[in-house]
């Protein structure tokens, strides 16, 4: 069963809609037993970093998520804020992140030549796959819908599987072992998002 973690952070309806379209049934849940029995996890998220961590704590989800992800090695994908929560910390807040991938979340900063670029980075942008990740199998010229003001900086290049340019290159997709993060919204990115989620859900 695919479980979409419900911690009251953002738009889950559209993920359910897309999974249904590609033939997967998913359940929105913050029930510890259900999460424990999940064979795939999705950590969505729209909102601020500290609110996200605070809610994960309030719903008592951090221990079970650590167990599922780090011990059971259940595949998980963090989307947007969900990806940022996977990192050690964020410039947006003070609370520590989940720290599953050695990375930090920082705010977009532009030099003079790009001072006109707006924050948030909003709209469709291309992703250039890195390190031959299977997540991009069958995807030609992948492009996705982004809305974010912060981005992830990885300590280890091998954890970067997709890059995108906005003023400068930033890491739009990351992966370490069973842990994935996507800065964009695959659930709102037409066939590109469908294929990417299919690839993720097909991981054994």
């Amino acid at each position: 069963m695919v479980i979409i973690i419900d911690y009251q952070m953002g738009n889950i309806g559209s993920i359910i809609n897309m999974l249904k379209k590609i033939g997967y049934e998913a359940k929105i849940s913050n029930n510890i037993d259900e999460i424990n029995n999940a064979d795939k996890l999705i950590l969505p998220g729209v909102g601020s970093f500290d609110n996200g961590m605070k809610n994960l704590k309030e719903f008592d989800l951090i221990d079970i998520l650590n167990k599922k992800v780090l011990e059971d090695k259940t595949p998980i994908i963090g989307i947007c804020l969900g990806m940022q929560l996977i990192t050690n910390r964020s410039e947006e807040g003070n609370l520590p992140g989940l720290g599953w991938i050695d990375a930090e979340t920082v705010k977009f900063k532009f030099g003079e030549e790009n001072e006109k670029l707006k924050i948030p980075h909003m709209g469709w942008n291309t992703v250039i796959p890195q390190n031959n990740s299977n997540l991009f199998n069958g995807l030609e010229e992948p492009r996705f819908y982004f809305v974010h003001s912060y981005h992830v900086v990885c300590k280890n290049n091998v954890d970067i599987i997709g890059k995108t340019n906005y003023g400068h290159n930033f890491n739009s997709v990351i992966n370490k072992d069973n842990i994935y993060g996507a800065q964009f919204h695959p659930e709102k990115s037409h066939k590109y998002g469908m294929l990417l989620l299919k690839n993720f859900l097909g991981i054994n």
Partner: protein
Amino acid sequence: MLLTRVMPCLLLRNWGLVKTIKFDSPKYVGDPINTVRIYNEKEVDELIFLDITATKNNKQPPFQIISEIASECFMPFTYGGGIKNIEDAKTIYNIGVEKIAVNSYALENPEFISELANTFGNQSVVVSIDAKKGFFGKYKVCTQGGTKASKFNPVEFAIMMEKMGAGEILLTSIDNDGVMEGYDIELIQSVSNAVNIPVIACGGAGCVEDFKDAVKNGGASAVAAGSMVVYQGKNRAVLINFPDRKELEKLLS
């Protein structure tokens, strides 16, 4: 590279889609769910649906229709029409809608925009401004589907809405709506220059060159089109369509 967003702006009247001219004489152009499916195939950037009867008839947003659209809409989806409280907004976001557009009620109760932005984030809140050129070329913000002129001009109102927490402005020229002879560049430019949030130009698009005009000369961050994406040819035969992606990329980059 970030691409300029081009989005169909479609009008809901009950279960049907309609298209107006200068906000008048709505003509039936099709079924919303089928239309969304076609736009999926064409990989449209984003979609806006506005219910033009909700505010006028003082009714709630049509949740059932919105839900059916959302279940087929695999691109960002903005809904506007009749949203006046946080509970209705929450219902709509939970259905799978990314952004809510507020028009008449933003003038009636500007604080509502702050409330929405604080609860759901600025990026989820679009303020829709309908502007009409009056005597001596002065623009006024209109509400109630363009039927009621307010005391505000679009520039000062857009500034106020940005302060309240709006994430985007959907700026529609009532005079150019459905005319298909180009956007009101003067109007777009005045508002784009006054705010830092994205301005979506709407009203008047007749061809892809008009998009370029709104972006390059008007300073719009994104463009919306109505007639152009539901009609074909001089006689306005209904045909749901969308310009070729490569052509748009070449033109707008």
